[in-house]
């Protein structure tokens, strides 16, 4: 093998353990970036193989290169080098599930047609053995004409064996069209390539046969071809090519597929055998219950209830520890540094702002942990299946379930996950309602409000009112998403319906190292990405809340009548200063707009800053309340909120109605610049993010108004 650094792409069907191999090869030397020009996550890492540092790309899972979904298109376009600054991979590692060889080899035969060196990895060989399937890798290798290695990605020794095989590879390009299209199909391909693709398109040479086969099969152009000239010529050539296939007795739609499967059948019939067949597998027995039309939705609801109750309860001790750490850390800095602006900035700005958000890291880690476990076990696909009927009725699609559930963690991966939805109308409705799903950024606000204002009464012995309220907010988000989808279904024109079809992976124990690694990665992203915004906003906010410096007038009780509009004698100097700061003045300007929702000017400032990112709200409140705090005091934000009193009315600022109104506002408002940006990128238009921002924020205002007005009058 060349001693030059190579670009190695991992390609394969979904659920073949591709990412496990990627993690095993790259370890911690990996990063999540975007593909050039599109906001689609690309996992890239490096691995030292044979003493050389190679670049490894983990491509999105794909069933074929005849892409119908954006994910598949990305995999294909990476392999043919369509992206700027991204060269054609030097080696494609095609990962296949050994226990489902024939189906997986379909994609492998397509990749072999691209004119790049290919190595086949028979992953999950242990699973195949467990099912009584034995495979001879040498025979497969001889039939396909590519190197083959059988591994189980869970075993380190197998990964070493894979590395060894890569380092020994001679990077030979496999014979194209090894699967043997019949003469009429070959003739049709040549016609299309020579009369249209070659002269009139810029499709790279390596991709021409795949493109020709796709055009013959589909019989029409897809979006990728609109930009090319001589469209009419292209259409007439496709027609001629299809006629050639028909003359040869084939069906243009199926000839290629059947030829490939026939070839695959010949390859595997000699090389693999099944020695035992269990009648009812564990997956069968679990599916009988989990996908049952009545039990399925009930189990799905219980899974969600358990998940959110656990997030709320299990994270509490860790949150208390972090809270204590930041309070003590702030006190230490305050007492160690000399008094002055730097001391104030660090304690009231940076530490308070950051501490207010880092405290929610345990809940976010638990949330992602559960989502990765559900994915890892194979349950997520069942959830989509179970909910398909209901989703279709409300205007969504069964495939919307997984993006919507991802939205519980963060709307951004959720919106990106809608790429698996082929129908544009289904996809756009899913995108438009997805931000209603209670993402982890809302969690800090919910957790704070619930902990401060909802009693921790025990219900049915195991649940608490706080946990149920927490769960209720998630259900509220789901209900609003469903209602919004129901309305949108009637607004958007109906196009070609895409019926639900999905592969259900076998149940298995999740790979715990992958679960923990991915969870930690998401936690790191939360801290670094949110942290950057929060620190910046906290510093700006500290400045706005600390300046201009205003001295509190020294007055006696009898003078109060003259100045009662500007201050209250019971007010402390810090609170007076805050009210007269830039932030205070701005808050007072917007207060009349938000007062009907039960919010005061301090919450108003939090609402404004949280339009950058929802989690900033808590950091903002922490900064504001820390600045307002009298010297020497140190209490948690929760205590500060509970004890906050309106100096003008003498009434507590927060009531249960205020807390509920605030949580409803956060449940419904579109307060995330990153989501707006990703919707713009995914829809390639400002129309959809603008519409999303307007309708969600208007709905949030109206709903909070109704909730507060009813709640405060009860």
């Amino acid at each position, binding site marked *: 093998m060349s001693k030059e650094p190579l670009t190695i792409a991992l390609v394969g069907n979904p659920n073949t353990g591709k990412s496990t191999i990627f993690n095993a090869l790259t370890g911690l030397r990996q990063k999540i970036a975007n593909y050039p020009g599109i906001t689609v996550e690309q996992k890239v890492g490096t691995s030292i193989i044979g003493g050389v540092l190679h670049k490894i790309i983990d491509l999105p899972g794909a069933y074929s290169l005849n892409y119908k979904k954006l994910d598949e298109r990305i995999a294909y376009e990476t392999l043919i080098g369509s992206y700027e600054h991204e060269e054609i991979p030097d080696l494609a590692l095609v990962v296949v599930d050994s226990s489902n060889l024939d189906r997986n080899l379909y994609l492998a035969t397509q990749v072999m047609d691209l004119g790049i060196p290919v190595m086949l990895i028979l992953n999950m060989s242990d699973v195949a053995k467990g099912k009584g399937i034995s495979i001879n890798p040498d025979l497969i290798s001889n039939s396909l004409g590519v190197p083959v290695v059988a591994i189980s990605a869970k075993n380190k020794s197998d990964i070493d064996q894979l590395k060894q095989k890569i380092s020994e590879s001679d990077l030979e390009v496999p014979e194209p069209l090894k699967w043997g299209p019949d003469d009429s199909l070959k003739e049709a391909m040549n016609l299309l390539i020579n009369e249209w693709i070659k002269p009139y398109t810029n499709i790279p040479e390596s991709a021409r046969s795949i493109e020709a086969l796709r055009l013959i*099969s589909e019989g029409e152009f897809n979006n990728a071809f609109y930009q090319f000239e001589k469209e009419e010529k292209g259409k007439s050539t496709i027609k001629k090519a299809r006629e050639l296939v028909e003359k040869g007795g084939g069906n243009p*739609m*199926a000839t290629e597929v059947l030829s490939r499967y026939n070839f695959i059948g010949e390859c595997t019939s000699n090389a693999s055998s099944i020695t035992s067949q269990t009648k009812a597998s564990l997956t069968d027995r679990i599916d009988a219950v989990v*996908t049952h039309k009545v039990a399925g939705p009930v189990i799905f609801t219980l899974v969600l209830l358990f998940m959110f109750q656990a997030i709320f309860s299990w994270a509490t001790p860790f949150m208390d520890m972090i809270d204590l750490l930041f309070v003590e850390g702030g006190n230490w800095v305050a007492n160690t540094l000399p008094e002055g602006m730097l001391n104030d900035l660090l304690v009231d700005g940076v530490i308070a702002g950051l501490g207010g958000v880092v405290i929610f890291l345990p809940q976010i880690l638990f949330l992602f942990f559960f989502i990765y476990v559900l994915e890892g076990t194979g349950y997520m*696909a069942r959830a989509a299946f179970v909910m398909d*009927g209901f989703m279709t009725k409300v205007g969504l699609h069964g495939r919307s379930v997984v993006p919507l559930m991802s939205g519980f963690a963060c709307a951004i991966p959720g919106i990106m996950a809608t790429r698996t939805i082929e129908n544009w109308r289904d996809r756009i409705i899913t995108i438009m309602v997805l931000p209603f799903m209670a993402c982890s950024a809302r969690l800090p606000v919910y957790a704070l409000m619930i902990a401060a204002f909802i009693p921790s009464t025990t219900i049915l012995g195991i649940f608490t009112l706080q946990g149920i309220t927490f769960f209720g907010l998630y259900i509220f988000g789901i209900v609003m998403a469903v209602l919004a989808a129901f309305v949108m279904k009637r607004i958007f024109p109906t196009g070609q319906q895409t019926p*639900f*079809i999905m592969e259900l*992976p076998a149940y298995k124990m999740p790979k715990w190292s992958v679960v923990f690694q991915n969870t930690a990665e998401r936690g790191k992203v939360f801290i670094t990405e949110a942290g950057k915004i929060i620190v910046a906003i906290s510093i700006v906010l500290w400045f706005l809340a600390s300046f201009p410096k205003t001295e509190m007038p020294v007055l006696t009780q009898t003078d109060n009548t003259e100045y009662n509009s500007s201050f209250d004698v019971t007010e402390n100097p810090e609170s007076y200063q805050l009210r007269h700061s830039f932030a205070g003045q701005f808050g007072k300007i917007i207060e009349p707009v938000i007062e009907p929702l039960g919010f005061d000017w301090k919450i108003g400032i939090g609402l404004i800053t949280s339009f950058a990112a929802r989690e900033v709200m808590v950091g903002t409140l922490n900064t504001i309340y820390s600045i307002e705090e009298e010297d020497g005091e140190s209490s948690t934000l929760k205590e500060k909120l509970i004890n906050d009193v309106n100096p003008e009315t003498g009434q507590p600022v927060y009531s249960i109605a205020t807390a509920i109104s605030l949580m409803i506002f956060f449940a419904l408002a579109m307060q995330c610049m990153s989501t707006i940006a990703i919707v713009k990128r995914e829809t390639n238009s400002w129309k959809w993010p603008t519409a999303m921002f307007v309708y969600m924020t208007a709905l949030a205002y109206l709903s909070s108004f109704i909730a507060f007005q009813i709640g405060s009058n009860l």
Partner: protein
Amino acid sequence: MMHPLSNGKEGEEIVVRCLDCHCDDVCRLNELGCVEGAQGRIISNQKNVILQLGEARLAIASTLAKTILVSSK
């Protein structure tokens, strides 16, 4: 005797005979291994269908299952 997949019974061993659906759906079914001549077993048929094809387990909407013609093995 051919019948739509949606009319199949749980546990029935079937052979896929004809995919009488839209071109896009045929492509998707083919990629997932559901081609004419493929043999499988109906795992569940409660409106939507779960079909075991080789080692692949496919969840198929009832509307699509109506267009997949199969015969008992």
